[in-house]
């Protein structure tokens, strides 16, 4: 059985929660919708608002569906899991789209909006995705040490 983990991080993203219908564990953040475990008949649904860590949920998932927040994306890509990002088109100054678009261009994830979610799930091909190399904070540390004269 396939497992899908759906996450909205610390935000409220009711549109996504409403639209998701695949077998899943759903993390719902601050949103107003908290689905009951018996609300979807064809699947096993587990929903929660917040957890200290979603690392286990990501690890057990075959697919992660996430909002475009940096933490959720980086954690999923860092765990080398297929990621479908759903961009919240109701947010002010929708900068989330920039990251999703860039990472999509670099073939690290797929992305869509709540209204195109169902279509994307039907037609997507996860085999096109390539691994995401982690960032290098050491470059930042070396630069800062030199600039500040740290011994």
């Amino acid at each position, binding site marked *: 059985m396939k497992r899908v983990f759906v996450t909205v991080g610390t935000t409220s993203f009711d549109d996504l929660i409403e639209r998701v219908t695949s077998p899943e564990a759903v993390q719902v953040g601050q949103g107003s919708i908290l689905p009951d475990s018996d609300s979807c008949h064809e699947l096993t649904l587990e929903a929660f608002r917040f957890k200290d860590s979603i690392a286990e949920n990501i690890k057990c998932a075959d697919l992660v569906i996430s909002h475009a927040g*940096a*933490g959720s994306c980086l954690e999923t890509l860092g765990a080398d899991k297929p990621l479908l990002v759903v961009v919240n088109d109701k947010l*002010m100054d929708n900068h989330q789209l920039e*990251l999703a*678009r860039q990472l999509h261009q670099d073939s690290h994830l797929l992305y869509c909006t709540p209204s195109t979610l169902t279509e994307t799930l039907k037609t997507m091909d996860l085999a096109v995705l390539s691994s995401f190399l982690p960032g*290098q*904070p050491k470059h930042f540390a070396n630069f800062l040490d030199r600039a*500040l004269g*740290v*011994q």
Partner: protein
Amino acid sequence: MAVLLGLFTGLCFTVICVIVRLLIVIRSGSKCKPGEKGPVCVLIVAGSGGHTTEILRLMESLSQSYSPRHYIIADTDKMSEDKIRTFENSKKDTGSKGQFTIQRIPRSREVRQSWSSSVISTLNALLYAVPLVFRLRPDMVLCNGPGTCVPLCAAGLLLGLLGLKRVLLVYVESICRVESLSLSGKILYHISDYFFVQWSTLKDKYPKSIYLGRIV
């Protein structure tokens, strides 16, 4: 009439002095090397969600020379304190010395808050930020974009303006920002001492920024 003219001239003169002093302070960043005298005291601004994750990834890479570490979080932030404590406790396990504190100030702006009310809430946060920064006297402020960082950086700048202490402002734009800067980034680009971007498109648009590739 003469009194008014005198007052006006006095005001103009004061404003010009403040601007000149501000430019002098802003341009003196590269000469400021707090690491040469000993440990570097850092004020770290943690924001909601991804901001805290990113800043802790940066903090992980810094050596124990960066101490004490003062984390500032917004009063309505429920998640960051736990993440910070977990991070700092893991540092203790690796034998890394150094103290840390966690302080709270009013949030400058909630997600989706209107621009006009954000000005008022940011000014309110400034009333808390100034005494806090004046008390902590950090060598450096490290931030990555939540609204909370604007009043704290402004307070750091004020400390320098008044000749009390030169506080280095280090800004790392979030990895989420590929083509455009955040509002905090646009404000702080001109006054930061070290302004990092993580995508080359931003480096092209903001030539004073530092691009080292993805660093979180």
